[in-house]
């Protein structure tokens, strides 16, 4: 033992002095790539962050745009009213209404006299005016529209109009004040309006007064609706007076104020619903139906699947034969918004666990087989499980195709910024096994893009099951798997259950 120590010391002593270096190893003869400094790294990271930020902005704006569009169809009745208003202004509608109105001006009454005359007529005569007959004719022409109109006209009564116009009330709203002015201009003098019904009626009158001829049609309809509301409270006999009154009066009015916007807050709920029903525009109705369809098609889903991935590894890397990619797990949850039956947008949160093994082989003492006179080599192989966990926000656009009404196929594209949460396991630089440490040279942020194919089978009206294949490619950097090893491609197979939000 002593000899060994002396021998070892002697040998070690011989090599304490370093040898002379040949000229081929001079600094000038070498060619090194210097690592990036911290500042350079910061700059690179800065660019990456900007890119990711832009991407997030892009996805957010797409989402915002889509939700905004959906939002139109999910509004309540108050927004339906405003939708109708926009439709009123359409030229074809104006033409229709104005043509009807032209035939609706049967009287020879003077402009300023007419309201008074009609009021006086109403006070003495309970029968419908000649305009009522005209409305009946109109009904034949355009059944859908006329029915609504006539219903409303029938709903209005002489009494209600009279009561409304002749009753007084000192409580006035700002709108009422305007109406007072208007009333005085239109020679309905000395009639202060008191009830909410008459308020509405006069409001309509004013609207009509302010309108050019072509606008009167829709005002009359609004007026009709409003007067119908008055009827609900007075319960008098049917008579179509007030709409006609206001129309004929206002057509020739010289007041040229802009059309006041109907304040939904001024209208009781019954009136709003009546308006919606009476709206003679199929388009508006279609919108309501569409909105129902769209809501119906939105669904939430949750899916679990398996992923496989490639390993970008250099042939000379020591880990070449030690690291293997095996099947990992993926989890996703999100919402699918069906724009129509053909297209849908999906927003989801995705969790991927990339699973790789690190094989460590250790040679054991050989065994001698005396019977056969041979030496048996032994190795101990340890499989260490390595995991890289990532989370991503994915947005995708999908095209759906129904097959025989039994199931649905879809194909789509997606993009997903991802963030690597952790990387755990074992590695080696040579043969010493050590814990895997995330390589900071590889950014934790990555950008995935890819395509997916799937088949959806409905279990019932609410639940679907889905099988989907997804291929993703990582554009920036890659996902860290082990030392000097990244992955930039991923395949996944998902089994998903989705639930329709509303029937």
């Amino acid at each position, binding site marked *: 033992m002593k000899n060994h120590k002396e021998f*070892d010391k002697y040998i*070690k002593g011989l090599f304490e002095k370093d040898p002379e*270096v040949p000229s081929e190893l001079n600094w000038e003869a070498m060619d090194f790539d210097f690592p990036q400094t911290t500042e350079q790294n910061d700059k690179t990271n800065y660019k990456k962050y900007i890119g990711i930020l832009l991407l997030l902005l892009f996805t957010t704006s797409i989402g915002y745009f889509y939700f905004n569009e959906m939002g139109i169809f999910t509004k309540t009745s108050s927004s339906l009213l405003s939708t109708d208003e926009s439709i009123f202004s359409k030229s074809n509608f104006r033409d229709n209404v104005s043509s009807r109105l032209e035939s609706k001006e049967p009287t020879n009454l003077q402009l300023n006299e007419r309201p008074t005359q009609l009021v006086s007529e109403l006070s003495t005569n309970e029968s419908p005016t000649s305009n009522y007959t005209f409305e009946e004719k109109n009904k034949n022409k355009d059944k859908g529209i006329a029915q609504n109109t006539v219903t409303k006209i029938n709903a209005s009564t002489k009494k209600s109009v009279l009561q409304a116009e002749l009753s007084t009330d000192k409580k006035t709203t700002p709108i009422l004040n305007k109406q007072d002015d208007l009333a005085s201009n239109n020679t309905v003098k000395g009639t202060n309006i008191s009830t909410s019904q008459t308020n509405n009626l006069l409001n309509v009158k004013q609207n009509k007064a302010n309108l050019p001829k072509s606008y009167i049609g829709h005002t009359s309809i609004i007026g009709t609706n409003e007067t119908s509301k008055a009827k609900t409270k007075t319960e008098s006999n049917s008579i179509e007076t007030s709409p006609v009154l206001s129309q004929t009066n206002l057509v020739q009015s010289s007041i040229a104020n802009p059309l006041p916007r109907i304040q939904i807050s001024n209208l009781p709920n019954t009136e709003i619903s009546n308006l919606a029903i009476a709206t003679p525009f199929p388009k508006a109705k279609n919108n309501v139906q569409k909105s129902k369809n769209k809501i119906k098609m939105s669904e939430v889903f949750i899916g679990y699947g398996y992923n496989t991935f490639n390993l970008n590894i250099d042939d000379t890397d020591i880990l070449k034969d030690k690291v293997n990619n095996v099947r990992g797990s993926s989890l996703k949850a999100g919402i699918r918004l069906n724009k129509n039956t053909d297209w849908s947008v999906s927003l989801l949160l995705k969790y991927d666990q990339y699973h790789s093994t690190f094989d460590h082989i250790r040679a054991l003492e050989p065994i001698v087989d005396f019977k056969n006179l041979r030496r048996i080599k032994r190795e101990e192989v340890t499989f260490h499980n390595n995991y890289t966990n990532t989370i991503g926000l994915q947005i995708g656009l999908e095209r759906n195709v129904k097959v025989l009404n039994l199931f649905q196929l879809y194909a789509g594209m997606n993009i997903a910024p991802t963030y690597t949460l952790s990387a755990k396991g074992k590695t080696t630089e*040579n043969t010493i096994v050590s814990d895997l440490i995330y390589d900071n040279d590889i950014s934790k942020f990555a950008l995935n893009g890819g395509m997916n194919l799937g088949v959806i089978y409905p279990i019932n009206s609410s639940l679907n099951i889905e099988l989907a294949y997804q291929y993703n490619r990582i554009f920036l950097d890659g996902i860290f798997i082990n030392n000097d090893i990244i992955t930039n491609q991923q395949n996944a197979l998902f089994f998903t259950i989705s639930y329709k939000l509303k029937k």
Partner: protein
Amino acid sequence: MNSDINIIKDCLQGNQLAYKHLYEKYISYCYGICIRYSVSKSEIKDVVQIIFSQVFNSLKNYDSEKSKFKTWFTHICINQILSYRRKQIKQLQTQDFDDFTESIGSHTESNIEDSMDKQHILSLIKQMPNNYQLVFNLFIIDGYSHKEIAEQLDISPESSRVILNRARRWVKKNLIHI
């Protein structure tokens, strides 16, 4: 030691002159290790390139409180050399130990001219069977323990002891023979 730390700091700030200083300070030491581990002349430039590239890239991970820079550098050198020769080592592991003894005689008689000097020992080391050479270098000159050698070479510590004893005997035998 302090100068090493200052040089490393300069390197991390991107000073290329500091890299040059570091290289020139340790190249002869690195070269000595390469020779001991029988890196051939044709390969030595590549190996040095790999070693220093690894050192430069890993400088940010160096912790002066854990070890001296020279120790850390030595580990990188040996790891890289072993990595470079990994395939050869694997092949050697499959060979029977007895085969080596047969091949010794043919090498030992040829190149030895002087006795007991450094060049002579070096030439002996070069002629050693690879696993002898590695264990001999790692244990006697680089100061690794049998456990560390076992981990480095994927062998058991007992094997390392056996190989070391055989290597010693091999060197002594050849020295006496001369």
